[in-house]
């Protein structure tokens, strides 16, 4: 990794963690386990488009690991790791088809994140009771995914500007 990449990846991991923390301060607005805005996903979507899958994966993995260590439990680590992994793989595949834009990629990521979480939670709990929340989780994934996708698209368009100039100067 080039120094610039290390610095940028580190910065993005920090940003994702800050967003995770900010989100943990917002009280749950619906009484359904797993429903979140997913602010940290802005960083992952940005990394997927501006950097590559490898960097996005690294950022997502470390974000989940560090956030669970700092603000969560071993259980939340299992849920969020499964959700984050499924979400990132799904987004990457969808992005690679070249058929869809940032918003659709982000929405699929949000829905897959919720599906991964609920599947692991159901497996750990050994009960199908959680699948009652599946429709709510899909709908919330669509809504939050659109918001996150639009914000990410704006960032990808604007933050990228000037990168070439920076590269040229060093």
């Amino acid at each position: 990794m080039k120094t610039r990449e290390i610095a940028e990846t580190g910065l993005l991991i920090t940003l994702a963690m800050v967003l995770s923390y900010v989100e943990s301060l917002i009280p749950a607005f619906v009484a359904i386990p797993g429903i979140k805005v997913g602010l940290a996903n802005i960083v992952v979507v940005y990394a997927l488009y501006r950097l590559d899958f490898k960097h996005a994966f690294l950022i997502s993995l470390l974000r989940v690991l560090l956030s669970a260590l700092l603000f969560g439990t071993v259980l939340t680590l299992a849920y969020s790791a499964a959700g984050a992994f499924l979400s990132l793989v799904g987004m990457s595949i969808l992005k690679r088809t070249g058929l869809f834009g940032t918003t659709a990629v982000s929405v699929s990521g949000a829905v897959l994140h919720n599906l991964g979480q609920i599947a692991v939670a159901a497996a750990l709990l050994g009960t199908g009771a959680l699948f009652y929340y599946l429709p709510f989780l899909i709908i919330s994934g669509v809504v939050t995914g659109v918001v996150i996708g639009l914000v990410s698209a704006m960032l990808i368009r604007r933050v990228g500007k000037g990168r070439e100039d920076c590269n040229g100067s060093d």
Partner: protein
Amino acid sequence: MKDKVRGKSTVSRDIVLILALAVVGLGLLLAMQLGGRAGAYAVVELEGSEIARYPLDCDGVFVLNGGTNTLEILGGKARMLHAECPDKLCVKMGWVRFSGQSLVCLPERISVRIVGGRSSVDVVN
């Protein structure tokens, strides 16, 4: 910019995919609401194995799992009255009454599922 050209051409496909997912979610929700019929029992599960079963037609307050959670049954509905976990999501879920509905407390690994129903007494489900 390349991105902009590509972004424009994907907008309609994006909308189709997003709407498709929304329809799946709403469809599942509708199917569950329409299929909702009053349940007969509240089944309490700890890590997936049944630890208690309370009929919904007997009102009462029940201490679960050695006191981590308290279940209230009143007039055919059930709710989590109290939970020791910090997020209290299961308490905020409120009342459940239809077969298939559930109250889940992830931190305590306890779940309450509504099963059975008037019309399902002689139907295997």
